[in-house]
């Protein structure tokens, strides 16, 4: 019983800590690298803007850099690009109703499989 609770707590802890990168104190250079690595280079195959040298990628990176220096937030910049290039540009899909299943599956699949597995054990009998 306790055994399981500890694991669950551990699991949730990691889940939370890793899903909130500390975005407050990083300078614009780091923000730029992080942001452009989360965006797709549209004319390449599965490369991020950061890694790409294509003309379009360079232009977009320039725009991102300017907007960061103008003080825009990551979300503002992403919105700007999504309006023009669609959600396809985001390597990290938006957290919305359409993508809900995508985001909850890790947790749900874990809980379901754990539930099935627990039935194989004498967990209830104790």
């Amino acid at each position: 019983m306790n055994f399981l609770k500890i694991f669950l707590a551990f699991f949730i802890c990691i889940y939370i800590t890793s899903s909130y990168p500390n975005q407050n104190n990083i300078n614009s250079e780091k923000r730029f690298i992080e942001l452009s690595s989360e965006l797709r280079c549209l004319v390449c195959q599965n490369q991020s803007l950061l890694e790409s040298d294509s003309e379009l990628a360079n232009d977009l990176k320039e725009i991102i850099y300017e907007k960061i220096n103008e003080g825009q937030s990551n979300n503002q910049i992403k919105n700007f690009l999504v309006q023009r290039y669609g959600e396809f540009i985001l390597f990290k899909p938006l957290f919305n109703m359409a993508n809900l299943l995508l985001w909850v599956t890790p947790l749900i699949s874990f809980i379901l499989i754990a539930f099935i597995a627990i039935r194989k054990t004498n967990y209830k009998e104790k």
Partner: protein
Amino acid sequence: MIKKEIGSFLKYIKLSPIILFLILSYFLFWKIKNIQNTKELQSVLLNQDLPKLELEYVDGKFTLNSLLGKKPFIINFFASWCAPCRQEHSVLEKYSKDLIIIGIAYKDDINNVKKFLSELGDPYDILMLDPNGRAAIDLGLYGVPETYFIDSKGKIKYRQVGPLTVKKLENILKSLKVN
């Protein structure tokens, strides 16, 4: 009582792999059947109003504002340094009388553009410059040549990435008329 119900339900858990597999197969079969139709690049700006573009006006018969929302027209991004644009140019020349074509020179120098047009002919009713490529990004451009078809209400109806051919252009015009 409830426990029993759960117990009888759990008997069917062994069915879950096959059910999930069937769902997955449905999607895969759908996709493989439609793979040809979906290969065309789509644009989020489709059926949207043409955004305001910051461009340098070079010359032309009229201005963009006088056209917008009144007549259908075509916006063609090109550059004198781009090889496929040269091929495409002859197609545009052919249709320059029937269609209103706006040429936007992408990241180009005005002198080079003028040389390019005097060499290959000028199919454009309006010629404009996008020196740093920013207006292009507002339209979601991938690269030159790229062509946008705007209807008489000022909405973007079609986007062609890469050079146009006579056949492609005819097909596009036909499909736009149907709609």
